[in-house]
């Protein structure tokens, strides 16, 4: 695990860029960021039953004038595909923060197929993909993506490398 508090850096970037609605399906890699968002009075956290709900949530929020972010694991990206057609066809701003599975350090082979396809699937639906490979890049990457999404009505996903999350086993994940 990195010594840099990258979830805290991401939270400060989101807050500073006036992101006020946070849709999420929990992931171990997003645990701290979710807790920071839940504890913040300015932010409304919305737990989803499936990630595709978040694409609708973000669309409605922006029609109502509010910026949002979606937090999910790479497996959840596959659940979003068809609804991303609305994002593209209406040119709606969108920001998704994806914690990656199926990469270096993966302990569950069933996570590998969607992990390997995540960027391809997003790009197929016209979502701009940015990778964060090191903790010190996270805050700036998120800040830049929020600005690009909302200044240019475009969709962006930031893929946070599994090595930042640093969980190596089911036991470690459960104990987090």
């Amino acid at each position, binding site marked *: 695990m990195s010594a840099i508090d990258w979830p805290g850096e991401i939270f400060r970037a989101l807050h500073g860029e006036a992101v006020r609605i946070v849709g999420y399906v929990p992931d171990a890699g997003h645990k701290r960021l979710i807790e920071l968002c839940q504890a913040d009075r300015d932010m409304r956290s919305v737990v989803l039953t*499936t990630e595709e*709900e978040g694409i*609708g949530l973000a669309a409605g929020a922006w029609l*109502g004038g*509010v910026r949002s972010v979606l937090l999910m694991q790479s497996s959840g990206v596959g659940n979003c595909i068809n609804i991303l057609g609305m994002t593209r066809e209406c040119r709606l701003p969108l920001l998704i923060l994806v914690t990656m599975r199926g990469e270096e350090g993966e302990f569950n082979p069933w996570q590998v197929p969607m992990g390997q396809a995540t960027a391809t699937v997003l790009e197929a639906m016209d979502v701009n993909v940015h990778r964060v490979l090191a903790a010190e890049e996270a805050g700036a990457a998120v800040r830049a993506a929020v600005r690009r999404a909302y200044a240019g009505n475009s969709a962006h996903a930031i893929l946070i490398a599994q090595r930042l999350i640093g969980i190596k086993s089911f036991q470690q994940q459960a104990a987090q």
Partner: protein
Amino acid sequence: MSAALHRRDVVKALLLERGDALVVAGLGSTAWDCTAAGDSPLTFPLWGAMGAAAMVGLGLALAQPARRVLVITGDGEMLMGLGSLATIAVQQPPNLAIAVIDNERYGETGMQTTHTAAGVDLAAVAIGCGFSTACVVREPEDLEPARRKLLGGAGPVLAQIKVVAENLSLVLPPHDGPVLRDRFRQALLGS
């Protein structure tokens, strides 16, 4: 039991006194119904994204807590986003209402029956999730009380309104996404 209500009459009645309510119309027949009742910049019709109408409504309701948000969608569309009823109930948006225009059919694809034809009760699902109010409307005299709840009752509210399965003329809203986005935001936010 055959339904007595007709969808175009129902949607027209729901929208007649909408005031400054924000409306999300689910894809297909309900979008055409809303347009037949009178197009408005504050109606956002979906041409796709099946299953997302209620969640677009939730996003709007959270962003605009002082405005009524009414989602008008079909039974097939609502069934595809059934989990969103749980998500909405957890948030308890007091200003969000969902009208499910239930003809028990997938109307755009050949009138195949949906789960509601076999008895799936969306109002019971909504209550089970934690909606404040949910009802099934079968008779014409039950429509007015449901309309009042949809437009003014403490949300989240869901009304499942049984209507005749009928093929009607297409009354299409604008389909260009950025036009729909911009006219809605202009009318609501002035930007």
